[in-house]
């Protein structure tokens, strides 16, 4: 089916992408050393362990929330952590499940917030995104490589329908697998795969039609 690009495929399939150097990274999946012990200590309320979990999850959490509700992202993140603190004692699972669990909670906080704010949600989000995207078209000839994470996210979100954007946000920013993303979104993994495909194709089309990727 991908016969046109056999060698490319092969290189992707065999590449150990995680071993490649990355420009800047914070702890992602597997980066929490000895997650089981860390979780256990965190469940006992030990600060060092809480700090490890917080440092691993707060940045992606904030990005995820900023994408959805930039003006209250910090508050929602704090609410999320409070809920995590109240329920972490009953959590049981690995690091990936923990990430997914935290995002599930964050998503609920988000939904609660939107319910409260019902019709007060106005332009800010869109405006911010538009401004960010407008920056992309700046004649400063910015290339994708030079985009900050925030700009890249803004571009991604502006190019995609919400559900497709969310899949990529959870996968890329949240560091979740397809199954975990599906759990967070309350969808079937197959559905998430379809959304993921569509998102990637759409992004490729978008980016191809722009000239910002001339490297």
């Amino acid at each position, binding site marked *: 089916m991908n016969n046109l690009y056999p060698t*490319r495929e092969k290189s992707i399939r065999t590449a150990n992408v995680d071993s490649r150097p990355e420009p800047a990274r914070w702890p992602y999946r597997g980066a929490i050393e000895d997650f089981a012990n860390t979780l256990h200590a965190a469940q*006992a309320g030990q600060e060092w362990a809480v700090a490890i979990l917080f440092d691993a999850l707060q940045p992606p959490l904030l990005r995820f929330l900023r994408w959805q509700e930039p003006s209250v992202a910090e508050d929602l993140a704090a609410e999320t952590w409070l809920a995590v603190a109240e329920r972490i004692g009953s959590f049981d699972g690995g690091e990936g499940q923990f990430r997914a669990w935290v995002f599930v909670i964050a998503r609920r906080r988000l939904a609660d917030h939107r319910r409260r704010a019902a019709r007060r949600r106005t332009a800010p989000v869109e405006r911010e995104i538009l401004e960010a995207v407008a920056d992309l078209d700046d004649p400063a000839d910015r290339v994708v490589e030079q985009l900050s994470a925030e700009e890249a996210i803004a571009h991604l979100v502006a190019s995609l329908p919400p559900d497709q954007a969310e899949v990529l946000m959870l996968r890329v920013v949240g560091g979740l697998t397809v199954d975990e993303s599906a759990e967070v979104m309350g969808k079937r993994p197959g559905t998430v795969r379809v959304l993921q495909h569509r998102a990637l194709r759409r992004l490729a089309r978008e980016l191809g039609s722009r000239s910002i990727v001339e490297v």
Partner: protein
Amino acid sequence: MFRNPLDDDIADQLASGTVLPEDAPPGYAEVATLLHAARAGTPGAIPGRDALVSDIAATIRLTPGPTPAPIAHRRPQVSKLLTLKALAIALPAMALTAGSAAAATGALPGPAQSAVSHGLSHVGISVPSGTAVGPDATGPAKFGLCTAYQAALARGQAVDHSVAFANLAKAAGGASNISAYCAGVVPASKGSGTTGTGSTSSGDNGASGSNSSTTHKGSTSDGSSTSVPNGPPSSVPVGPPSSVPNGPPTSVPVGPPTSVGSGPPSSIPGSPPSSVPNGPPTSIPASGQSTSNPGASHKS
């Protein structure tokens, strides 16, 4: 041309943001770059991070464990408090209305006795406290003590922890002598609170240890007595009452007849006592209220 179908595995890797542009399939290098950029970034210092971490840790420590058990743990404590409170209210009422020999003579278990004593002290009634010297078993309290003693015996309860019992034992010349000591005071009864000695002549019916509507009538609460007996009665009824009251009581107990010291009475006087106590109470209330040890008031 870049919109070629994507293999699931490739899509998965692309979407995770971990594929470098040079590894992306044709047409997807830009996507890989964008997603890579979205994933990267320098988190930098999160404002208020330390305070947040402290708050989270503190919240975890304050939050009960996996199960909602802590709520279940707290509840009994609250209800325990309420129960104690109710007890403190109910017991004095009972002591006032029912003339419980046990409470009056300090024969209740220590904490209960203290609670009753404390509760009664608020309404101006003096009852032995848990650490008090207890009633004088050789004096007027003898009847009450013996009644309580026999009631406890009948229930198979141990009574030897109370001050009152110690006094009784002392008066009897030893714990083993109590039965003999009490033999002349209280008719040997199989049950408790059912001595049924009451209504005939001595006004002792209130001393049966359970609810008797005639207690106050037969004792001092009406303040009608004019003289005070100063010794044990010269004679004690030993047999069943020669007559059983069958009319309605003239007064109704104010509090619930929470029988502390005994089981349910086997018989309840149906009418007021046929006779007025022939001996006045050991003490006279100052204001028509029962101010003395109710146990003493049982003794006529």
